[in-house]
């Protein structure tokens, strides 16, 4: 092989990495051959690179159940539901960070603007519904997981399950630790005058401490105790561990069509709760006002939160649309 051919082959291999692993496994080798031949004929062609980037992105979206069609309806539903779960996971930290700030503010003083009061109530109901949905969604998954473990079919499951458990344990322990000392923790005199139990608000605030605009103000950030700054950096990593562990576990569980249908129904409910939360949050940011003692002031992080939550909801709804319940109904089980 000449140096030119060798270089083209290496460039082709790099471009194939734009595609999803499933696609690459099936077509990667022959596609790299075609790309290398094309490169030798037309060494510099930016349209070829753009074409590969576009098609590679499409293959990844298809693998994630967000575009195209996977031949197996079960695989299509599983991929789309996992994508919905990832979108929900992006939505939740920003939503909870916003909601916990507002509910902690309520413990100091009720909001004076009706829009803020109504928004916090709607957001609180949506959070409660999402928590219930999380239990309903997790129950059959946990059941299938336990059956696999009892049946000694745990291959490939233990590592992601351990990652999920470690991340969750870190979040719970850190949330409990850093939630102490704020209004809402048991001993504080204002612990029980808010809209939601103070402990819940403080715990949620502590677990989402990393969602803050202080990252853009390093000087102010360094004024915090080092342990708190460390937790602000560690808690998002713990969340990522929870999401990656959960996604990998669900992908490897091979759930039945019945479980997938249940998850699809629950996901549609979650989509509705996310939409209600987002509308309420947007109403507060746009029309809420700072309220007494600036307790309900909407900052730049809240605007960013709206953008992230809006994008996550759009992706989530797209994924729900592609679950294809009719195709799933025809699947056995």
């Amino acid at each position, binding site marked *: 092989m000449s140096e030119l051919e060798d270089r083209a082959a290496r460039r082709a291999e790099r471009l194939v990495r734009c595609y999803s692993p499933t*696609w690459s496994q*099936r*077509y990667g*080798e*022959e*596609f*790299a*051959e*075609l*790309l290398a*031949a*094309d490169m030798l004929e037309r060494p510099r062609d930016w*349209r*070829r690179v753009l*074409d*590969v*980037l*576009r*098609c*590679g992105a*499409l*293959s990844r979206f298809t693998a994630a159940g967000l575009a*195209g*069609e996977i*031949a*197996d*309806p*079960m*695989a299509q539903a599983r991929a789309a539901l996992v994508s919905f779960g990832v979108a929900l996971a992006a939505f939740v930290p920003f939503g909870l960070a916003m909601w916990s700030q507002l509910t902690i503010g309520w413990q100091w003083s009720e909001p004076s603007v009706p829009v803020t009061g109504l928004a916090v109530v709607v957001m609180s109901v949506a959070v409660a519904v999402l928590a219930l949905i999380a239990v309903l969604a997790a129950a059959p998954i946990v059941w299938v997981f336990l059956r696999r473990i009892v049946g000694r079919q745990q291959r490939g499951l233990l590592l992601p399950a351990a990652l999920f458990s470690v991340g969750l344990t870190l979040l719970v322990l850190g949330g409990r630790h850093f939630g102490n000392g704020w209004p809402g923790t048991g001993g504080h005199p204002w612990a029980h005058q808010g809209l939601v139990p103070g402990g819940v608000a403080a715990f949620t605030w502590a677990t989402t401490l990393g969602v803050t605009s202080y990252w853009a103000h390093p000087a102010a950030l360094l004024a915090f105790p080092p342990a708190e700054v460390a937790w602000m950096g560690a808690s998002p990593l713990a969340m990522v561990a929870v999401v990656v562990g959960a996604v990998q576990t669900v992908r490897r569980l091979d759930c039945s069509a019945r479980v997938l249908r249940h998850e699809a129904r629950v996901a549609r409910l979650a989509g509705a709760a996310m939409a209600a939360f987002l509308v309420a949050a947007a109403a507060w940011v746009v029309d809420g006002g700072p309220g007494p003692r600036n307790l309900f002031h909407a900052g730049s992080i809240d605007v960013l939160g709206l953008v992230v939550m809006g994008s996550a909801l759009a992706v989530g709804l797209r994924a729900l649309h592609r679950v294809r319940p009719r195709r799933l109904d025809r699947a056995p089980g």
Partner: protein
Amino acid sequence: MVPPPGRPADAAKDEALAGFGRYAGPATFILSSLAGGEKHGYALTKDIEAFAGVRLPPGTLYEALARLEGQGLIEAVPSEDRRKPYRLTALGATVLRRQLDAQLKVANLGLRRLSGTWGVA
């Protein structure tokens, strides 16, 4: 023809016969090229360039190939070579026939109208 795993043959056939949608151009070129015999990716590119004057970029070509294979209109020919040849299936031949008939109908109508109204032969 063996349908792809998890997809009933009838469903694939119905979908394929319903049309190619926005993949109509590359799909028709590829099927027409394979109607002349099995070819691998590079040979397809050169053949299509020769008979249609269109050079399909590699990404677009393989996007269409994967879709056509998923619909059961083409199939990979077992080969030891890194370049995998593809061939038309019986369903692919039927679908191509319908597609070309429809295009021919439009072409004939357009030519007749051009000739009648504009005098272009």
